[in-house]
């Protein structure tokens, strides 16, 4: 019996070796580099302790990137869940062609968000941009959308929401299909209206689905990278960077590997904290219900 358990534990070996060497080792190396002054390729690393972390506090561009990351994470999570739940309820209601709607809403997830950013670029250019054409049709003047960082942040959030709302929809759809009709019928007999049925039956039963949808969206939004690279590349004037794209620019362009690692470790801790916190929150919620 014991021998069998030991033998079975050998099954872990390939996966663990890969993860140890290609995730854990790089992680430790990143932590070490974050304590050094290093340009990314010279053989010498100069150990400087927590100076890189101290530098972060006085970096205004990083502060912008931090705030943007929170917007990308939190706002698109809220939007995606609202839209995803709405779409799930809509597709779940009976009408001809609901499958087509489901298939189409899920489709953008297949496309790399880098390429999606470029496709959206065709909508937002000043000359010949589709959005300006639509505005023009209503007699409004053309706007250079990406010249203003605030608009850039808004559009990146919206595109991220639009592209990944289908993910939420599928999660909610499977949640909805797990709710037994009996509860809803019982409530109907008790005279509960449409809204009351949703509030007191559907919503509480969806808590597990909400938990996974929120977690996935939060983590996805906080580590957003490709979509920004293709749409604004962090510009104009560093106003649309997220933590990840700012890290990229510090490492790739400014050759500050130490500082970039410090940003990376901080972002990692931030994502861990946010997801653990929201997981706890929902666990408590589901006990309350």
């Amino acid at each position, binding site marked *: 019996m014991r021998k*069998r358990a030991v033998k*079975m*534990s050998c*099954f*872990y070996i*390939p*996966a663990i070796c*890969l*993860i140890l*060497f*290609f*995730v*854990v080792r*790089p*992680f430790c*190396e*990143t932590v070490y*580099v974050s304590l050094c002054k290093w340009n*990314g390729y010279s053989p010498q690393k100069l150990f400087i302790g927590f100076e890189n972390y101290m530098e972060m506090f006085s970096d205004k561009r990083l502060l912008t990137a931090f705030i943007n990351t929170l917007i990308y994470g939190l706002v698109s999570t809220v939007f995606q869940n609202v839209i995803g739940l709405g779409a799930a309820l*809509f597709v779940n209601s009976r009408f001809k*062609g609901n499958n*087509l*709607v489901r298939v*189409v*809403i*899920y*489709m*953008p997830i*297949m496309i*790399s968000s*880098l*390429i999606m950013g470029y496709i*959206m*670029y*065709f*909508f937002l250019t000043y000359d*010949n*941009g*589709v959005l300006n*054409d*639509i505005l023009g049709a209503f007699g409004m003047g053309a706007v250079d959308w990406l010249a203003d960082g605030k608009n850039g942040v808004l559009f990146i959030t919206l595109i991220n929401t*639009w592209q990944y709302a289908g993910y939420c929809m*599928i999660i909610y759809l499977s949640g909805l299909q797990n709710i037994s009709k009996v509860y809803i019928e019982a409530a109907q007999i008790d005279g509960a209206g449409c809204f009351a049925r949703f509030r007191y039956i559907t919503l509480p039963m969806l808590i*597990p*689905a909400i938990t*996974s*949808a929120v977690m*996935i969206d939060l983590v996805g939004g*906080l*580590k957003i990278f*490709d979509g920004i690279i293709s749409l604004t590349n962090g510009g104009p004037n560093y106003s649309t960077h997220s933590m*990840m794209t700012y890290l*990229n620019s510090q490492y790739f362009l400014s050759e500050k590997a130490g500082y970039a690692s410090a*940003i*990376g*470790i901080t*972002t*990692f801790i931030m*994502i861990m904290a946010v*997801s653990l916190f929201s997981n706890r929150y929902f666990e408590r919620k589901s006990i309350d219900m």
Partner: protein
Amino acid sequence: MKKATLKQRVKQNWWKYLIAVCILVVYLLPIYVVVVTSLKPVTDHTSRLIPPTEIYWENYVRAFQNSNILNAIKNSFIITVGTVLIVVVAGCLAAYPMARHRNRLSKSMKTFVLGVMMVPGMSMVVGIYSTLVSIHAISTYWGIIAVSAAFGLPMSIYMYCNFIRAIPISLDEAAYMDGAGVLRTFFQIILPQLKPVTASVVLMQAVSTWNEYGYSLYILQKKEMYNVTLTVKQFFGEQMKDLNGAAACAVIAIVPVIIVYLFLQKYFVQGTMDSAVKG
């Protein structure tokens, strides 16, 4: 008679069809715009919403000639297949003891795997890059395959683990009674039942590897090793004036994925559920 009821039903549900049409427009317009743009010459300054008067294939010719996109599709294909193979094999192996044992090792493995699942790859790109430099894996297939497999494994282990839990343990025990070893039990009893979840793991991993951009940017540095996303990026970067050619390049990049999706969309939906909903 039947026609009348159908008409009635449409009339009753007209607002649903209105919403449905709006959703379809919002979701299909970007694809339409990029296709239309790719079929117009650069000199055509009509709105991108208006279909071309005559179809202009030159952009595609340029995209194929200037961007090496065919080579990139080959590279992405090799990288995706390699990653998926490793993730499937190592994933279901590791999930088996994790699902069957209730000891301390399997518990700590589970926590470890869930923790790794949350690590954003880009946040430790400095470490990944130095690690790969130290083993001379920059611009090699195996370098990027190993990294994407390592980051994809936690999800696959998680999905397999949930699935194996649902297989009755009495099957394993019956096999042991009959004298089968651990390996034989796994390969003859468990493995044949894993087909549905394997389809999910394969599709989820394939899409994320195919679309990966963050660390490929650092790992694939030689131009002939570029994958699809890097090639599209390069084309848009170099030819900002030739947006129509770039649109053609983007269309070539997304068409294979969309076709696969349309044929297998049922499995993609299942895969999403398997990866998101706790079992």
